[in-house]
């Protein structure tokens, strides 16, 4: 699905990514973890097309995406939800999701139609909003939503283009303990059901171990380890680098 091959990126002489390679298999939930400064965000930004890599390349279903602008990568089938999720704050939940749907259908340039008369996009948007559990808040201005709900709007917008691969950057960041539980359940329930391929970064180790089929551990800009959750939590290098003893079994 997604292939990252020998990607390097440096900023002002600091090597943020050093020959990083990894693959995300179709249908899997793949976590990207590592301590702060390990290069997760840089890698995320390379994949979404915000930074061109200095070396190496990224391919989405065989098609090269590295070096392309974000909106082009999105049109090739990448769904993106940012860590600091912010909707279009002048619009309601419904308008946000409708616009995402229209943009993906290439219908957002229209001048002679009314936005509110786009009944097809509206139907799709209602469905997406239902999926993320905000059916009772469609008319709410997004500026009035709590962070947890904003993240759900963000995910609904990311799903609007029926992405081949969904990228979630820190889906639990900033949420309270109870919100975290419901977000993890939500991601698992919804995205597994949809058969979505997911690549996500997350600091919450419990959530990672519960959600991920496969985990790539970054450390100082390099891939330290990769494997299933059981392998990773017992990997001596990973424990030393950042997991801590408590996650090791036996």
């Amino acid at each position, binding site marked *: 699905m997604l292939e990252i091959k020998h990607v390097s990126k440096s900023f002002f002489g600091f090597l943020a990514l050093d020959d990083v390679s990894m693959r995300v298999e179709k249908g899997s939930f793949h976590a990207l973890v590592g301590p702060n400064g390990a290069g997760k965000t840089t890698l995320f930004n390379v994949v979404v097309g915000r930074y061109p890599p200095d070396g190496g390349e990224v391919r989405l279903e065989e098609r090269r995406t590295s070096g392309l602008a974000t909106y082009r990568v999105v049109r090739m089938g990448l769904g993106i939800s940012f860590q600091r999720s912010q909707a*279009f*704050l002048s619009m309601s939940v419904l308008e946000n999701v409708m616009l*995402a749907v229209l943009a993906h259908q290439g219908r957002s340039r229209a001048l002679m139609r009314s936005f509110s008369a*786009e009944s097809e996009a509206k139907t799709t948007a209602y469905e997406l909003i239902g999926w993320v559990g905000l059916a009772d808040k469609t008319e709410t201005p997004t500026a009035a939503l709590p962070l947890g709900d904003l993240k759900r709007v963000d995910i609904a917008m990311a799903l609007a283009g029926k992405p081949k691969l969904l990228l979630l950057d820190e889906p639990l960041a900033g949420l309270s303990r109870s919100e975290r539980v419901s977000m993890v359940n939500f991601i698992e329930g919804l995205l597994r059901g949809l058969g979505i391929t997911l690549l996500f970064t997350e600091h919450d180790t419990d959530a990672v171990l519960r959600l991920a089929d496969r985990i790539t551990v970054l450390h100082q800009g390099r891939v330290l380890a990769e494997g299933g959750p059981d392998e990773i939590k017992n990997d001596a290098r990973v424990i030393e680098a950042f997991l801590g003893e408590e996650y090791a079994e036996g």
Partner: protein
Amino acid sequence: MKARGWLYLIAATLLAAPWVLPGYALEVAIQVLILALFATAFNLVFAETGLLSFGHAAFFGVGAYTSALLMQRASWPYLLTLPAAVGTAAALALLIGFFSVRTSRIYFTMLTLAFAQLVWAVVHKWYAFTGGDNGVTGLQPGQLWSDPHALYYLALLLTVVTFLLAVRLHLAPFGYALRAIRDNQARAEAVGLSPFGYLLAAFTLSGALAGAAGFLQVAWQRSAFPDFLYWTKSAEVIIATILGGAQSILGPSLGSLVFVELGAFVQSHTEYWPLVLGLVLLGLVLFLPRGLAGLGGARAGD
């Protein structure tokens, strides 16, 4: 029902005005319409994309000069110069927009100002073609358009068309996409919108309509002057827009009405118009940050 009543009242007033107003007041009313058209065009970019252009005088002026020079040198009938004025203004906006809309906020404002001053300098100095600082004078727009009644209705028509276009854009998917880019550019790109194309299209449309305002100014003044392109003209349209309220679709028109009428009134009594304007702006910023339209409470644009 109530809104429709107001609409009829405004329409009747606008249509009857030339038959009620004495000569001088009609001339002022035409100025109100020209500035209202210009401000509504300017606000297409300002309100929908959040980008503050300080160079819209260039499009106004180039529209005016296109019309004036075609009449003077090629003896085109006045009305036929409208598409040419709109076309050259659009072409200039496309060019300036191409280099400016990629930049953000203050850089966009400074770049549009710089480009406009550049165009002003050319018009100001190119005596052989534009007449330099003497301008293009003594124009004869024909018998019909020399009658202020006819010119008033032409200005009203173009202003209403521009206004309806602004409403159309605000309610269309295109307008939503522009506001999405304004609200959060990174998120807009992440749903597949390419900001550059949208911003350039909006900027070009806005510049083209500003050219139509310049076209009207030529018939009103029977001349074109480099002042039309000077930065103070850009400031005028910004002031009128903010005075009326940029967040309301009627705001720029309302602001233009007050700006022109107040200016005409104050200037007939004292030479201290800039001082009065300064005080009005001060009061506005302090007490009415959302402009005169903010007095109504409701956001007419939404």
